[in-house]
């Protein structure tokens, strides 16, 4: 894992008010790093989906944002973690149309399409951490679908 710097912000996710803060923070951080408007919007939307998952399915948690660099490219890494029940069937949760509450079933799978790198750590009863990273001025095509 390549890191250029430590965690720069830690935001609680306990209410839908917090979701607004998460979105605002990610928007500002992405704009500061020079993300294009479309890329900012994609990352903010992914953050909103993931933060809502943390709130609704994980019973609350937090987001950590950090600035990362690799080979001279700046990126923004976001980690959403909760200590909730975990995701029992990850493959199913990542497939479109799957939903365990509220949304249109786009949460995890949709968020994955909006970022460059995507990783989930989860175990039944042991909570869930989703880490996503997007990079500035890479070729516009998403590379997340490996």
């Amino acid at each position, binding site marked *: 894992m390549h890191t*250029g710097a430590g965690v720069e912000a830690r935001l609680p996710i306990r209410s839908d008010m917090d979701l607004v803060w998460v979105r605002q923070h990610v928007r500002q951080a992405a704009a500061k790093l020079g993300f294009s408007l*479309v890329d900012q919007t994609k990352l903010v939307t992914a953050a909103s989906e993931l933060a809502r998952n943390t709130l609704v399915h994980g019973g609350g948690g937090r987001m950590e944002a950090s600035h990362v*660099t690799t*080979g*001279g*490219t700046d990126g923004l890494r976001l980690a959403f973690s909760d200590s909730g029940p975990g995701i029992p069937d990850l493959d199913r949760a990542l497939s479109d149309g799957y939903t365990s509450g509220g949304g249109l079933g786009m949460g995890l799978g949709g968020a994955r399409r909006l970022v460059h790198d995507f990783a989930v750590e989860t175990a039944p009863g042991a909570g869930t951490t989703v880490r996503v990273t997007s990079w500035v*001025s890479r*070729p*516009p*095509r998403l590379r997340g679908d490996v």
Partner: protein
Amino acid sequence: MPQHETGATPPTPAQEVRDFLWRRSEQIAQRWADEPLFRAVFTVSREEAVEAGKAVVDALAQVADSQRVEDPDAAGFTGVREQLARMGAARSRAGLSATQVSSELAALLPPVENLLVADLEQEEPERLREASTALSVLLGTLRLVAMQTALSEIQALTDRQRLQLLEVATPVIKLWDGIVAVPLIGTLDSARSQVVMETLLNAVVDQHARFAILDITGVPTVDSLVAQHLMKTVAAARLMGAECVVSGIRPAIAQTIVHLGLDLGTVKTRAGLADALAYCLHELGTNIVAAAPGGAGRR
């Protein structure tokens, strides 16, 4: 790396190197000024090369002071990054390969090492050995930083040029009040498709266009990825309140689309740009009537 306690105890190898660099800054810079790397980049005067050399020595001393001789991200390098990038870029412009630039950077070590050996001759051989190891690690890191910085400059430049090319290759034409068109020529890869999508949608907003025509007459092939991009563009335009028509699907492309089993079901298509324009005009409620024969013009 062995770490000694600071205080009254002997300095760590990194601190030893730091003190050496401070003490010998002038001499090192003088020697570097004669090396090909500095000679070739700073052609105006020798003083200029010496000044640049001193800046690098200062940066190295700062890095050694922070005990992070093996860390290319050490704060001490920040100040000289731009200068190193300029030096590296100048050498590659002069036709040197990356390997050659790298070996020119490597050539900076021996003169410094000789000075260090001369300075620490009286000390225990163990101390000298450790200090000179730290020094060569430090200069290795410098080399890494210089190469990294130079490469990322070049990368940024090509990225910028590529983007400019993409934008130039995607003109938006206003055909009528409320109708814009993007004639696409050449191969559509996914990066270009993305630019096309953004350009077209921005034009829809700027021109208040209710219709957008994507003409692909000049596109030799369409693969499934490109077809997907076309469909995404159409879907995004619809969300904004505009309709997107794809025109100029040549028989070969139509065949490919069928062959790949792609469903363009939701996409409005027309054979040619003129047909697409006629469709949009009709939808807008605009009728075009041929002028009276004999070239009487409009009445």
